[in-house]
């Protein structure tokens, strides 16, 4: 009974569906990168959509090739991307806060005022120290 099934066709269909879903996610993320009003909103919404889309595309490719080596390499790339993408997002976000990149005007910043005040005044002290030296 197993001989009657066309395995190549099944693999192609599964791979196509995964690739199309992944590409749609990536396109939506890129449109969001152009449309959103503020750096932090772009950052928090975009990087993760791209990561999920990339994971889906790579999984589709691994299923199409159907070899152990290929699946291992695909899993390596997916694991590495999912591990490093939050770290990069966090580092860039903190750098932006320290560089006084403005927030969107509708952002609710009540609980963040103390931190912002401390960070920015620390900058001023540091600059003053440098001048004295």
């Amino acid at each position, binding site marked *: 009974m*197993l001989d009657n099934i066309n*395995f190549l066709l099944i*693999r192609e269909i599964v791979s196509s569906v995964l690739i199309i879903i992944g590409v749609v*996610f990536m396109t*939506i*993320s890129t*449109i*969001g990168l152009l*449309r*959103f*009003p*503020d750096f*932090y*909103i772009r*950052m*928090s*919404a975009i990087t*993760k*959509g791209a*990561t*999920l889309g990339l994971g889906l595309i790579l999984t589709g490719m*691994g*299923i199409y090739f*159907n*070899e*152990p*080596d290929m*699946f*291992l390499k695909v*899993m390596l790339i997916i694991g590495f991307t*999912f591990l490093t*993408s*939050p*770290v990069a*997002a*966090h580092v860039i*976000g*903190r750098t932006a*806060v320290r560089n006084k990149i403005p*927030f*969107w005007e*509708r*952002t*609710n*910043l*009540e*609980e*963040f005022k103390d*931190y912002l005040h401390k960070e920015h005044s620390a900058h001023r002290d540091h600059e003053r120290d440098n001048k004295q030296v």
Partner: protein
Amino acid sequence: MKTFIIHFLIAFIGSYLYFKYGDPMLPYNAFWAVVVAVFIMFVLWLTTPFYHRTYFHKLPRALNFIAYFLKELVVANLRVAYDILTPNYRMKPAVVAVPLSVTTDLEITLLANIITLTPGSLMIDISADRKLLYMHTLYVKDNDLESVKYHIKHGFERRLMQLTR
């Protein structure tokens, strides 16, 4: 936690070696590879009561945590996608200070990575005394910051503490 990672690596490499160098009776494809890896993990899980007693109870909770995280990931992605494709913005962003209950380095790193990986929320920094976690979030319903904190603390942090303690 450490045992889980070691078992996962053993299962992954075991499945790879079985299909690469073994003499498999099954035809190779992704479905059977995943089935073999899960089978190896299940056998390893049955042996754990002899040397690591608590792990035996923790694995179902870990699976529950992974399922919850995947559900959150897909739901949040679809919400952000809806907001991108429709002309008006529905979002109300805010920066929330979440009080932390977890203390060790590993737990804080895991929590921060999971929060950042969910779309619509971005972790900015941790206060110097490690009590507060500043998080930029979209979608605050009618200026109710407490509900966002409740969602983080009872969704992710409680499940994470059940795993690592």
